[in-house]
């Protein structure tokens, strides 16, 4: 096995290389800067959707790359996302009961 192939295999098995993690962190920092900019710049009707999308993208990136869910066994993803899905369902229903989503 060549060194390059071995390195590629190693990267795939344990996650990204250190440089890869730094790239992910830089992307996360850039998204955070964009999020903060929504506080100062008027995004109009795009304000709420853009913030929610950026939050979800950051969340998924940390879970997938830093927590290695993208590279790990799918059972771990199932356990985590089941808890998350249950929490979302449960509390969206609870908030709806209190008419939170009605302006």
């Amino acid at each position, binding site marked *: 096995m060549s060194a390059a192939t071995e390195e590629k295999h190693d990267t795939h*098995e*344990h*996650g990204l290389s*250190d440089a890869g*993690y*730094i790239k*992910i*962190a830089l992307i*996360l*920092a850039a998204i*955070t800067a964009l*999020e*903060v900019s*929504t*506080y100062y710049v008027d995004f109009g009707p795009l304000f*709420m959707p853009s*913030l*929610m999308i*950026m*939050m979800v993208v*950051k*969340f998924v990136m*940390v*879970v997938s*790359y*830093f*927590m*290695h869910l993208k590279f*790990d*066994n799918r*059972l*771990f993803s199932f*356990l*985590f*996302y*089941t*808890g*998350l899905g*249950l*929490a*979302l369902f*449960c*509390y969206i229903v*609870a*908030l709806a009961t*209190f008419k*939170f989503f009605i302006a």
Partner: protein
Amino acid sequence: MADVAVHADHGSGHGHHSSTGLSNNKLAMWLFLGSECLLFGGLISTYMLYRGRVSDGPHPSAIYDIPFTSVSSFVLLMSSLTMVLAVSSAQRNDDSKTNLWLTVTALLGSTFIGGQVYEFTAFYREGLGFSTSLFGSSFYTLTGFHGVHVSVGVILLLSTMGIIRKNRITGNKAEVVEMVGLYWHFVDIVWIVIFTLVYLIPA
């Protein structure tokens, strides 16, 4: 069949294995983190319900210091990077770099906690006590619980550094660091949600 065996080993590490071939420690940690979603979901929902209920004391928009909280968020985000670099070093059996990155992560976590203590003190001085309003109660409960989680994370980081230095880890060292890392990243993703829903979206 061989593919299944490889796949099972892929997520296992070298700890005690369950019948699935996966590490028991890792399974338990992911199950714990899944249940933590329910805890923080409840706290965040409660805050969302009560954030506009300000009968007395300052309104959220009057006290939030977005530039300060943005810096705190950035610090916690970067601590996730240093944590993953610690895990990466542990997987390469590089103890000195593992300890270095764990130290940096603990320092960044402590900085975040220091920032939160400063923020709470500033809010209190501006008239927002725990029982001033429903907004105050739900805000302090949510961010306080998160702060306690970060503090526990810092203690875990320092303990891990200690047992690595004294060479007291009997099992897979990389897996121990990875478990602490999973907890730390979870604390980070909770803050990602809190930063957007609590601080950036006005009540």
